[in-house]
């Protein structure tokens, strides 16, 4: 391995890390402002001087100053490890997501498989936090997280499998290469299932039963303070970025668009941010689903829909 190779790897890692640190904050700030205006408010206006652009930086500083408390009865190791388990998988997933033609930190042959497997780990962080906190609200939240993960992982993977079947490859750049505009119609049910199931895995409203603050305080994160709590919040927004990027890559054609040889990365980013806006929009518009509604939507709605999409993909792929 020559020095150039080492430098190249280092550069790729730095770029991914940069995107990992910047994009979630961008989504968070967008959420602050978009949600405020959707509710006829202004949102943060002071931090940083211009329309509160530095609000999340200020929040970060605040979290860093707070005391880091571990409950006496908590399982200390697991309790302290949980935020990292929640956050790091999303960083790892970003490595495999292609941004432009040939522009991917690490092209994996089984990229889709890798990405889905690693994303599943992220939810484990909440489960560990819920179990280790020695708090009944945390435990309830953790169990709800588990139930939600069980229900929504299946349609999530079925929908992704449909695209893999259509493209005939598990490689993410390969899927984007094979993508054609008419897939937007063909894979539409799959896209909806994938996006909705992904939202539920991220526990974003309206699927935020596991952290329902009016019932169980903040679910698995009830006992967390300071930086560890901030890491959980960051994980949520990193999860949004990853989910939106994945939906873009799998269903919206990734870098495809006008001048995609030069501007491919811009298209991917734009589509990702547009989807992130939809995530925020859904949060503002819909009330939280009850636990039974949540399960019914997964098992009676999304799973049959994903199976139908799979059948449709199979038939069309054979015919075409």
């Amino acid at each position, binding site marked *: 391995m020559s020095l150039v190779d080492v430098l190249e790897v280092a550069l790729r890692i730095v770029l991914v890390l940069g995107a990992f640190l910047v994009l979630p904050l961008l989504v968070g700030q967008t959420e602050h402002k*978009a949600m*405020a*205006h*959707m*509710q*006829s*408010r*202004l949102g943060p*206006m002071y931090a940083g001087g211009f329309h509160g652009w530095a609000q999340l930086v200020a929040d970060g500083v605040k979290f860093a100053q707070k005391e880091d408390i571990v409950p006496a009865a908590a399982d200390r190791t697991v309790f302290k490890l949980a935020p990292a388990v929640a956050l790091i998988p999303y960083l790892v997933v970003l490595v495999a997501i292609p941004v432009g033609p040939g522009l991917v930190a690490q092209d994996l042959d089984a990229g889709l498989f890798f990405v889905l497997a690693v994303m599943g780990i992220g939810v484990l962080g909440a489960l560990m936090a819920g179990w280790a906190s020695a708090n009944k609200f945390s435990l309830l939240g953790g169990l709800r997280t588990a139930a939600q993960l069980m229900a929504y992982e299946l349609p999530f993977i079925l929908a992704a499998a449909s695209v893999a079947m259509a493209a005939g490859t598990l490689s993410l750049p390969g899927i984007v290469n094979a993508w054609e505009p008419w897939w937007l119609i063909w894979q539409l049910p799959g896209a909806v299932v994938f996006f909705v199931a992904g939202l539920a895995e991220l526990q974003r409203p309206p699927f935020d039963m596991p952290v329902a603050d009016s019932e169980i305080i903040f679910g698995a994160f009830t006992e967390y303070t300071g930086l560890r709590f901030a890491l959980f919040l960051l994980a949520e927004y990193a999860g949004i970025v990853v989910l939106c990027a994945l939906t873009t890559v799998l269903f919206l054609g990734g870098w495809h668009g006008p001048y995609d040889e030069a501007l491919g990365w811009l298209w991917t980013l734009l589509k990702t941010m547009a989807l992130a806006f939809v995530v925020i*929009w*859904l949060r*503002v*518009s*819909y009330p939280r689903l009850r636990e039974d509604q949540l399960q019914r939507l997964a098992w009676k709605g999304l799973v049959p829909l994903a199976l139908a999409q799979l059948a449709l993909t199979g038939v069309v792929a054979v015919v075409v």
Partner: protein
Amino acid sequence: MRIGPIKVPGAGLAKGLAVTMRTMTKRSVTDQYPDVKPELPPRSRGVIALVEENCTVCMLCARECPDWCIYIDSHKETIPAPEGGRERQRNVLDRFAIDFSLCMYCGICIEVCPFDALFWSPEFEYAEFDIRNMTHEKDRLQQWTATVPPPPPADPHAQRPKELEAAVKAAEKARVDRGSAAAQVTPPAAKDESA
């Protein structure tokens, strides 16, 4: 949601999204208060201003106050007798204070003052860190008179002020008395000039 007789699945979901999107494109209702002063309605009850010169220490305000939050001290002063007259006494105001930690902004003191010494001012930025500092003496109350707005114009078709009505009536009566037998009574010109 139904469009005609057909129930469209998911129409309610779309409607919810439309509502939030529409709200986002409109201006938000937030007042940026410390940066932008609020536009207060006329007759805003911010604070009570005192015109010290008008006060005769009649004590009506202090006695009518439901909270007993007005404190008045005074002494009598003898005015020396003018040529061929006799000397008179008048009240001199020593202290006039309103405890705004007790005041409930009912405005009875202002209503009851016969000499127009008390007014509503829309000024409201007089918060204090200590409740004991909420008692404001007459010099502070006097400062607020500068912020008292002129009375807003009467609403269209509103009753005219009692004073004006009485004056018009008196003028009309005098005219009728002077015209005596004359059958026609011209309406007074003052009637058209509303206050």
